[in-house]
Structures are given as C-alpha cells and as structure tokens.
C-alpha cells in the first residue's frame, strides 16, 4: 500500500490523485450502506426478471414472467374497456333515426366528439379538419348543399359517395360544354356573364343578356330556369354567394368549358353503418344542416 498523505490544511487524508501538478482530492468516503443500497437495487432488478417478461430465449420467444404481463396486453385491455364503455352510445345511435340524434342531449356530446375524430381521420384530407372545404371540395359548414343538407341526405352521400362508382352513388355530372364543342367560346363568355348576373355580379350587361337564351337552352334543365339549382341532380344554386370552383368570370367560364364532376368515395363497407350515422349527424351539426 502506498504511503498515506494527509492534507496539511484540513488534516484529512487525500486520495493520492494529483491533477495539474498540485491539485489533490480529499478522501471523503461515502457510508458503506450506500454501497449496500446499490447491491439491493441489483437484487431488485433480478426480481424484475422473475416477475416481468425479460429475456429473449433461443426458441424465438421470451421469458414470460409470473403474471403473463405485457404492455400490448394492457393496451388491448384498455381498448376493450373503452369500447365497452362506448357500446351503449353506439347502440343508442343505431336505434335513433339520424335526424333525431342531434336532439338527444345525452348523445350529442358523444356524437360531436366521436364524429369529429372520425371526420378528422377520413374526411379531413379533402374537406379540411373542421369541414371548411377548399376549391372543389365543398365547405360543410355553410347552408349551401349540392345534394341536400338534411341528415338523411348527408348520410346517403357518405354511404355511397358522389360519382364514386358505387351502384347507389349520386352520379350526375356537368357536361363539358366547351371541350365537347356544344358551345362556342363566345357563347361560353355570354353564358358566364349571365350566370354572374344571377347574383348581381355581371360585368357586361349586353353579354349577360345574350347569355340568357344560351342558359335557358343548355343549363336550365339542371340548374333550373331561375338558376336556383336542383339538389336531385347535384346542380348547384347559381344565385347565391357560394362558389365551389370560384365565382370570378374566368372561373365560371372554365367551369362551363370543362364541366365539373368532383368525386367523393363511398364509405359504406369501409366505415360501419353506426359510424356513418354518427358522421352524418356530426356533419349536420356543423351549422349548415337543414
């Protein structure tokens, strides 16, 4: 053993380590029980191996522990418990006509919360998380509906989609008046001016006047004589302030030239009927429901 060195100032033994030539550390040992606590924690750790799943084994599995515990199992237990807690609401939704759901004070908070979650996952990518929509993707918060805004009509739209290929789908589309040569470019401009005049936004009165007849011949069949649209055919109301593809002259001209036929997928088969019902009630509650 090396010779012990006592620090002259404090009278305490040093550890014998020297830094920078003269810097020494006093030997101030920890109590021995501190070390025993470390040993105790090691023993405790071994206890973990016995109680909980711990080691992989050679036959591609692992030591299971004493209580068959697994985090995945805990999660699935929680999920099962959560589903069980939701079950009574789903049963109630299934038993309630979709238009009545909103009036049920007990169901409403559940439908709002559950509907918002399902909407965010499935509808949000196109319609926006709050259903605010975008150009070509309808805003579901307003009171303007292409295919009807009652809870039942909304449920039908969600079930079968629009131009989705499902046999029950809502399927009418606007023809390509320009591309298919039905109308000449000048007629399209006139028709567009007339359409804008329906909401008082026309910029050329004589063109709008010329467009009136073109509209009556080509457009009124779906959009109606007065341009107020027809929800049976998905033909939008052209007299209000809401424009799915933009309400400027060039937007309307483009619409007449190329036609419009946005697609919404059908959800029947992908979402269960109760979820679709919940979703319909949620969309209806966004503020524009009829």
């Amino acid at each position, binding site marked *: 053993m090396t010779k012990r060195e006592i620090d002259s100032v404090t009278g305490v033994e040093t550890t014998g380590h020297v830094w920078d030539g003269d810097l020494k550390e006093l030997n101030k*040992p*920890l109590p021995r029980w501190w070390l025993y606590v470390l040993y105790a924690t090691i023993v405790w750790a071994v206890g973990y191996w016995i109680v909980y799943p711990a080691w992989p084994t050679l036959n591609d599995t692992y030591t299971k522990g004493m209580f068959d515990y697994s985090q995945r199992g805990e999660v699935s237990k929680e999920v099962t418990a959560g589903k069980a807690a939701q079950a009574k609401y789903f049963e109630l939704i299934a038993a309630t006509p979709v238009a009545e759901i909103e009036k049920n004070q007990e169901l409403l908070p559940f439908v709002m919360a559950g509907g918002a979650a399902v909407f965010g996952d499935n509808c949000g990518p196109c319609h926006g998380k709050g259903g605010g929509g975008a150009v070509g993707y309808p805003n579901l918060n307003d009171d303007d509906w292409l295919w009807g805004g009652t809870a039942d009509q909304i449920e039908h739209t969600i079930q079968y989609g629009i131009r989705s290929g499902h046999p029950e789908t809502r399927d009418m589309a606007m023809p390509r008046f320009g591309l298919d040569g039905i109308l000449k470019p000048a007629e399209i401009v006139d028709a567009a001016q007339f359409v804008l005049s329906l909401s008082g936004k026309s910029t050329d009165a004589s063109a709008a006047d010329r467009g009136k007849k073109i509209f009556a011949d080509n457009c009124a069949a779906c959009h109606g004589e007065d341009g107020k649209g027809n929800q049976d055919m998905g033909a939008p109301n052209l007299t209000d302030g809401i424009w799915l593809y933009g309400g400027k002259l060039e937007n309307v001209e483009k619409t007449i030239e190329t036609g419009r036929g946005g697609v919404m997928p059908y959800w029947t088969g992908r979402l269960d009927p109760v979820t679709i019902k919940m979703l319909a009630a949620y969309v209806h509650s966004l503020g524009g429901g009829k």
Partner: protein
Amino acid sequence: MNMMNRTSDIATETPGGYAGRQKVYPKLAHGTFRKLKWGVMIVTLGIYYLLPWLRWDRGPNLPDQAFLLDFANQRLFFGPIEIWAQELYYITGVLILSALGLFLVTAVAGRVWCGYACPQTVWTDLMITVERFWQGDRNARMRLDSSPWTFEKVWKKTGTHITWLLIGLATGGALVFYFRDAPTLARELVTGDAPAIAYAFMGIFAGTTYLLGGIAREQVCIYMCPWPRIQGAMFDRDSLLVTYRDWRGEPRGPHKKGQAWAGRGDCVDCTACVTVCPMGIDIRNGSQLECIQCALCIDACDDIMTKVGRPQGLIAYDTFRNVEAPSHEQRVPVRIIRPRTLAYTGLMLLVGGLMLTAWLNRAVLEVNVLHDRNPMFVQLSDGGLRNGYVVKLLNKEHDTRRVRLKLADLDGAQLQIVGFQEADPVIDIVPDNLRALKVFVTVPSALRDKLNGSSTPFRFEVIDATDGSILDHDATFRGPANE
C-alpha cells in the same frame, strides 16, 4: 488526540472507497434550547397527529374534515379554502412561500429549520428519547452496545425497536387520515375494510419512519438531504449561527479548581458539546456541513461554564462578522434588517400578495371561449357570415347554476346553441362540472358592412337566470378582409 473531524478519522481507518458508520450516542442536554426543542416537538407532532381529526362544517354532501386531500374527487380542503385540481398553482405558491421563508430564516438565524422543525430532526429526537428511555443515557448505551448479548441487552434492544416500530406505525397511520375522512378510515382500518392503498402507505411510512428516524438518523442529513449543500449560499456574515467563540475558548485545556484563568481560554475541553451533539461532530471545528444548528451544544456548554464559574455563551448564536472582528471588547451589533433579508421579505410579500389577489378574485363560475380554427368563418348562401365557438362554462359551486347566454357589442347578430331548439334557452350546469356548448354566431348580410374587416371584437355574456348577475368573456368575430 485532537480529532479534526469524524470523517477524517474514519478515512484513516478504511482506505477503501466506503466508510463504516460511527454510531452517535447523543447525551441528554438540559437548558433553554433543549426546552425549546421539547416545545417544538410537542407542537409539531401534535399538529401532525391531530390535524386530520379537526372537523369543519361545509354543509351537506361535502366532507366535514378541516384538512383533507381528497385525491379521489380532485379537491383539496383546508378549512374554508377549497382548491380544485386545476388550481394547484395555489399549492405551488405555498411551496414558493415556504422556500422563501426557509431562505429568510436561514439568512437570519442559520439552519433553524434543520435544528428544530424538520420532520427528520423531530422524529429522530423522538426516537433518541425512546432509546434513552429503554437503554439509559449516552454512557449506559455505549456500555450496553459493547457488552455481550445478555438477557438485559436483548429486552432493552427489543423494547426500543418495538417502540420505534409502533411510532412508525402511528406516523403512517396518521398520514393516511389526511387523504380520507379520518373517523371513517379509522373504523375501516380496524375492521379491515380500508382500501389496500391505505394499508400500503401505513406500511411504507411505518418502515421509513423506523428506518430514517430510528436507524439512519444523522446520515439522512449528511448524505441524503440536499439542503445542507444549499446552506452555503444562504448564510452570510450577518447570519446568527451556532458558533464556538474560539477567541474566548482557546487555548483550551483541562482546568483544575482554583487554577487561574489568565493566559488560557475558557474551554476546559470537557467535550460536553460533542457528547450532546446528535450529528456526532465537534462544534469547535467551526462551521460544518454536518451541523444542523440545533443549539444543544450551547445548552451543554452553558451548563459547564456555570459550573466552572465562567460567563455563559462560549458557544452561542453569533455572526461571522463578530467572530472575525479584530477586537472582541465590544460585540459587533447584529444586523437582522439588511438587503438580503429585505429582498426575501419583499419577495414573500409579493408572492403572498399575488396569491391573495388571485384568491379573492377567484370566480366560482368560469367562462372560456374557443373560436373554431377550421373554418375561421363560414360564408352563408344569403350573404351572411357565421362563426363557430365552443363556450365552456365551469361551475365550481356545489349547486346547479342556471344561466343564459347572450351576445354583446355585435348588433343584429344571431346566436344559436347546438342542441337547443328554442331561442334564449336556460342552460343548466350541474355542480362541480364543466359544460361545453357549441355555439354559432351569425351576422346577416345586411349588417356585414358594420363589421370591422377581418376581426370584430365582441363579448359573450353569461347571465345568471336566478339573480341576473352577468359574467362576460371577450371574443372575436372573423370575416373576410375588407376589399
């Protein structure tokens, strides 16, 4: 041999990385500070054991325990004060006040908390008293420990440990009463109907009280507690600390009766100060991390000084400023009021004032308004504009509140609450509850010109349907920017 301090002594015995504990046998002191410590012990333990039994009438359906931490219902009850889970910042405030109070007393008079009031100190003191009851004072205990295992030693040790365990059990037993109605829980504990967690915590606290107060004692302060490490920053030259006045005591040495005192110090090296020390240190080595400043050495030394006919106060509360003074003819006056203590006091007043203001303005009905983020506003087909909000109403009373919701400062706007068919409905908010309402505000086309562009401020008014009192909350109506 002049021991420099305890740890150095151990270090020379054990060259390894760890040292064995040198057991401390504190001798019973008599005097002012011992009496003070008995008093503090009786008061603090009395509060701890009895507080949960104090009753407080809060009316029906509410616990009548004055001091109750009702975790199950997320409520804390302190007499007339009731704190909800989301108001835990009041507890944070109390903790800040406590910390500042600790700083203040430490700046004024050193580790008073450690020496008198810390639970570790109080319980250790109690455990030592028990030990003294069973095994006698310092010398008897040292003799007993070094003696072989006789029948006497066995029953004395057994008695000590059993009493410690019973004290531990009482400590854990008292703790659980803070979390559940005490009389009910006491009955349940006896009949075995108490929740498992109550037994578990009784066990944990019985064990830790026995271990930390009975067995580990001073080691908790030296090795586990962070507070001694912070002390250095809390003292200054004006703090009153338990001090050995070396200018008076040195040179020390044994003194025979009748011998002259000239040319020597007052310290007769009797080590009375060392034997009473619960931390096992020698105060004459100056300020030390281990010293909890319990002042028992002052009592012990004053006793001896009286006996040898010298003035008391060889060990006393004193300041560094006085200790380091070039002359001790006159005592350097103690400055209690100084920038440091003023700053701590000021901070305490500030925090206390803020808490009091917050408490006095605490609403029993809270309103929060969240504006929809997507979409910010909705253009309606008739040219009107609509905004969506979630209005959250929090009723902190123990009665149902009936309120109406109205708009203010937004002329002509219509309010619609989802789930209510009628206009201007009365909304019930059940006690202790939050009700979130989805609300639509519509500004008709004709009034859009009055809007202030993309953002118009207005208010939601929550009107109590019973007494008509109004609570309002600011909100903003969004729209397209003015073109």
